[in-house]
């Protein structure tokens, strides 16, 4: 297995909760990095369905399965919807809502590198691929 490499995304201050950045991994891959409630998640910017740039889609919530006539809106800010056909993906896991076992998008490890804790507490958001 190839050694993982680290990509520096941006200073944490530039990626506040609810925002995203789309980066070029340098090997042909495009990756979306999301801050959801203060945690970072990285997904491949490629919808497994039709090849759309998934990570450009809206970040929203979802209705969980419910009784007829009930709408149980949940997980606000944790669901990414593909800009093409509206497929819903869980940003936290990369798994689709409609078929989490089989339909999913690649996820990558994220973190924050702190060079000088005294000066820049937020540090640099990184993705390891």
């Amino acid at each position, binding site marked *: 297995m190839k050694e993982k490499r680290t990509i520096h995304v941006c200073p944490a201050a530039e990626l506040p909760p609810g925002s995203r950045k789309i980066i070029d991994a340098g090997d042909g891959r495009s990756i979306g990095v999301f801050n959801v409630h203060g945690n970072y998640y990285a997904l491949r910017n490629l919808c497994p369905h039709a090849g759309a740039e998934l990570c450009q889609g809206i970040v929203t919530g979802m*209705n969980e399965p419910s*009784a*007829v006539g009930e709408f149980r809106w949940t997980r606000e800010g944790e669901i990414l*919807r593909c800009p093409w*056909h509206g497929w*819903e993906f869980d940003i936290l896991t990369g798994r689709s809502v409609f078929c989490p076992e089989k339909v999913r998008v690649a996820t990558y490890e994220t973190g924050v590198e702190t060079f000088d804790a005294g000066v820049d507490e937020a540090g640099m958001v990184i993705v390891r691929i």
Partner: protein
Amino acid sequence: MAGESEVNPGWSLIDCDVHCVPLHADEIVSRLPAYFRTQGLVLPGGPGLPHPTGVRRVDARGPRGEPAGSLPEKMQEQLLDAYGVDFAVLIEAKLLTVGVHPDTHFGNEIARAHNDWLREKWLPADPRFLGSMLINPLDPVAAAAEIRRVAGSERIVQVVMTSATRIPLGDRIYWPIYEAACEAGLPVAVHPGAEGKGVAGQFTAGFPASYLEWHTNLSQNFMAQLTSLLCRGAMSQFPELRFVMVEGGFGWVPHLLWRLDKNWKGLRSTVPWLDRLPSEYVLERVRFTSQPVEEPPSSDQLLELLHMMQAERTLMFSSDYPHWDNDSPLRAFPRLPEEMKERIFWKNAAELYRL
């Protein structure tokens, strides 16, 4: 249970759409309460698009010119005995139109009178006859009461109502009907004919201008009804609900299921009660009758279509006797794989109707 016919030895056959009609209006009117007897049997008018030779087969009339489908003995001879039909599911297709009659009191009474007529005249005439109880979907509470009144009668195997509606059939207003049908363990069937009549809605594109245009468009209405049953949650709300789409065609089934499934993947949040692919509900609990069978240029194409719609689970043979476009059990289908044939001509219906 399958009878052995001399005509088709070893052939087990359930015909899921056979039309009986009253010999004369009085067979129904005499069974109405006093006031309604004074009103006669006036059904909502049609769109004014007659069939050029009449909807009912001329050669199916009785010896004294009685209407086709009005004499049990004629039906026995011309359909049951001639083709070795083990069971014929009777559907009275004219009175169905009360389901679009603006006077729901009248509609309810006609449904009741029909159900008594069916049980008194037709079902005792031959053990091969199975009955569809008529209900008036414009008054779902009364319809549910009627289901409870008639359910349990011998050889009543389903509830039937018009496929033409003001509001699509998945809507909650119909739920008393589905609740009662589930309670009675009976499938709910819909049958065309009232489209464009009474209070029923028109086809989406507007008014057809010939019988050919009207008849061809019937399948559109069935598509909309099935979509509604799924999307508005009727199939989710009633896990026991089984639905029969009679005479609505079936070539559209693969298209509709694929389109529903595709849309559901992106739009499921608008119908969160559909917790799996819409097609799965259909494969489990919706059945289609075969007539008028699709007739593509080659029989291979029909076989492909049957595979696409999983006909071995979803399709049930019907003749539509004695209407003009009826299908012969001997000629309607090309040579089918044995198992599929058995499913279409016998097992799917035997399972649905618990025969």
